[in-house]
């Protein structure tokens, strides 16, 4: 069942075999697998429950309700994560991208992770894709925005393809980022969570986990707060005693909770090695009306510029279509005043390319004096060089596809009319807060590995410092797992579920 805070007036004390913090993709996997494995499961989700008509497709309502929006300390990068039942799966663009084989090879060789070969992982990817009803996007489903990218890529002779996605019966309305009221996007609220509930799992929404209490090397319980669903104010407390505790709160909140709880950490790496996969956008302005906001937002990409390095894993950058709604686009259009308004009137004639750069573990998450996360990240010279190149390539592709002008998302307007002017990107470079840079695919802060001196969790994602405490979200990735990390995170969560159920006697007696 889903338990809403409206119905709670007294402090809550629960006991279960498994307590899971976070109901995003990884947490949903664990909830379903543990519940269907015959275990009692309680999930704590800080966000609310939104489905059907509560997803009203209006930015001014849905963005504050569904998203956790943060910034790096210097304000230069905006980080977006889901804060709702289903987490990122409710608000993402529904891309399903497996981890490249070479990335698993790096994890094995460089980081010593065991049982992580492509062969070992295949069944977990297969399982997730089956439940998510993953399939390839058809040519006829490419919207105008993505067709612009495809045209540019084909004329340039680059490699490109349609995405695999987790939708069924999609009517191509284009509002994926605000949640699908029709239930066609296969967020985990459509599959994993209902299955978990059917097997007895309880989901507390508007329930924030505040601390994990540890006795020696054993995690004993999660203590938290029930929040008022409308105001977000603290209501009453909740305490869940559990034999196994699973952290699936995301790459920022998971290390936050582990640090607040002072989980033993020999490596000192909780919160370190933050990977952001920073991206920016480049817009083409066309004579014809495109209405790029309609249709599947992200359906085509070019991988011409990405490769797997033996040491660093996935490197380079990916270019993909990804147009959004007017409020969100307004935050990346440069300038202010009448010139800005003039640019915004071109909204229905715009197409964009998202330039997604594969960075390294270059950031950290620490706590401020209030126990809230502080995110520090400095782009390396390599990441900056890749982003510059990505922006220039995007501009070239847009001109090739017929754009009359190209607009970069520098705050000081950089709107060019000819490919010869693309060098403005070399002149301006990448300076903090001068260009719109965002991050959706946040990873790395509780790195996996066999050695407690150099990793936070072991190869089965169990904390070195606290037995029976697992971390299953994107924070465990030693390098970026994929261009879109929902599917790899879910596959890893399936793998850990498998491990726990195979060794259930050790944890549950």
């Amino acid at each position, binding site marked *: 069942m889903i338990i809403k805070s409206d119905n709670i007036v007294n402090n809550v004390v629960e006991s279960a075999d498994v307590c899971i913090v976070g109901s995003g993709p990884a947490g949903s996997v664990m909830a379903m697998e543990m519940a269907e494995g015959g275990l009692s499961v309680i999930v704590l989700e800080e966000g609310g429950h939104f489905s059907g*008509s509560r997803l*009203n*497709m*209006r*930015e*001014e309502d849905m*963005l*504050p309700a569904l998203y956790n929006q943060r*910034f790096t*300390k*210097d*304000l*230069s990068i905006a980080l977006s994560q889901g804060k709702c039942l289903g987490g990122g799966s409710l608000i993402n663009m529904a891309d399903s991208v497996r981890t490249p084989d070479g990335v698993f090879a790096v994890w094995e060789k460089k980081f010593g992770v065991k049982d992580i070969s492509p062969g070992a992982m295949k069944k977990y990817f297969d399982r997730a894709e089956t439940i998510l009803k993953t399939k390839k996007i058809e040519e006829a489903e490419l919207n105008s925005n993505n067709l612009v990218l495809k045209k540019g890529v084909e004329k340039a002779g680059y490699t490109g393809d349609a995405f695999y996605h987790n939708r069924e019966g999609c009517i191509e*309305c284009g*509002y994926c980022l605000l949640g699908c*009221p029709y239930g066609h996007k296969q967020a985990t609220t459509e599959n994993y969570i209902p299955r978990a509930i059917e097997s007895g799992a309880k989901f507390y929404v508007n329930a924030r986990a505040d601390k994990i209490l540890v006795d020696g090397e054993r995690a004993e319980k999660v203590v938290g707060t029930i929040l008022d669903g409308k105001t*977000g104010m603290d209501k009453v407390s909740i305490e869940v005693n559990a034999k196994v505790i699973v952290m699936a709160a995301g790459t920022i909140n998971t290390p936050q909770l582990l640090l607040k709880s002072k989980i033993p950490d020999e490596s000192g790496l909780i919160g370190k090695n933050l990977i952001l996969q920073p991206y920016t956008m480049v817009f083409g302005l066309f004579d014809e*009306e495109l*209405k790029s*906001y309609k249709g599947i937002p992200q359906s085509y990409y070019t991988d011409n510029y990405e490769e797997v390095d033996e040491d660093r894993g996935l490197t380079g950058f990916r270019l993909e279509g990804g147009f959004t*709604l*007017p*409020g*969100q*686009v*307004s*935050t990346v*259009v440069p*300038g*202010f*005043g*009448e010139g*800005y*308004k*003039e640019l*915004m*009137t*071109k*909204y*229905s*004639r715009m197409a964009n390319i998202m330039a997604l750069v594969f960075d390294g573990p270059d950031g950290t998450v620490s706590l*401020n004096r*209030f126990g*809230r996360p502080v995110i520090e990240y400095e782009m390396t010279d390599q990441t900056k060089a890749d982003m510059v190149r990505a922006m220039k390539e995007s501009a070239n592709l847009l001109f090739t596809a017929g754009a009359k002008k190209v607009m970069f998302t520098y*705050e*000081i307007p950089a709107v060019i009319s000819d490919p010869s002017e693309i060098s403005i990107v070399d002149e*301006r470079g990448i*300076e*903090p*807060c*001068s260009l*719109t840079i965002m991050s959706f695919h946040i990873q790395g802060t509780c790195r996996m590995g066999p050695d407690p001196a150099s990793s936070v969790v072991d190869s089965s994602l169990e904390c070195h410092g606290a037995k029976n405490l697992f971390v299953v979200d994107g924070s465990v990735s030693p390098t970026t797992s994929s261009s879109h990390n929902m599917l790899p995170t879910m596959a890893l969560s399936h793998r850990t579920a498998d491990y726990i159920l195979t060794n259930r006697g050790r944890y549950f007696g």
Partner: protein
Amino acid sequence: MNNYDIWKFGIRRRTFIKSMLVLTGAAATVGPSGCADYPKAEGNFAFLDDKTHAVIKSFSERIIPRGGAFEEGAEDIEVTGFFDRLVGAEPPEIQKNMRSGIMLLEHAPIFLMFKFKRFTQMTDDEKDLYLKKWEESGVTLFRGVFKGFKNLCTLGFFSNEKVWKYIGYDGPPI
């Protein structure tokens, strides 16, 4: 553009903002601005008070002014209400930083333009010149604050259906 990351010189952001506010406060006692009343903010606000409401209102009306490509501007749409709703939901320390940023916006003309006026007292042309200095500042923090405030205003403005017809957006199907 020269780029100065102040904390690379060992200055913490909080210290920088506090220092700027102290200096602008001191300058305000010298100039004619004094401590004049601000108009009462109409409506219920979780975060904005009369002064900060006036500053953000003035700011939003230069970011999205009336006229030009289409008549409506920020003063015709509830942009300050949207700003207040989003910031009001943030943790206390974030709200404190936002308040400091707004104060700096209001009182820093003396440093950026050598004008003994508050931002809300400037003419529209003066405000535009002043905001350009924020937008193009060599100090990352100034650029970051400008962009953050701008984004909240434009998000509130363009998610309002009154303006969709001007940008060719049909609105949601439900």
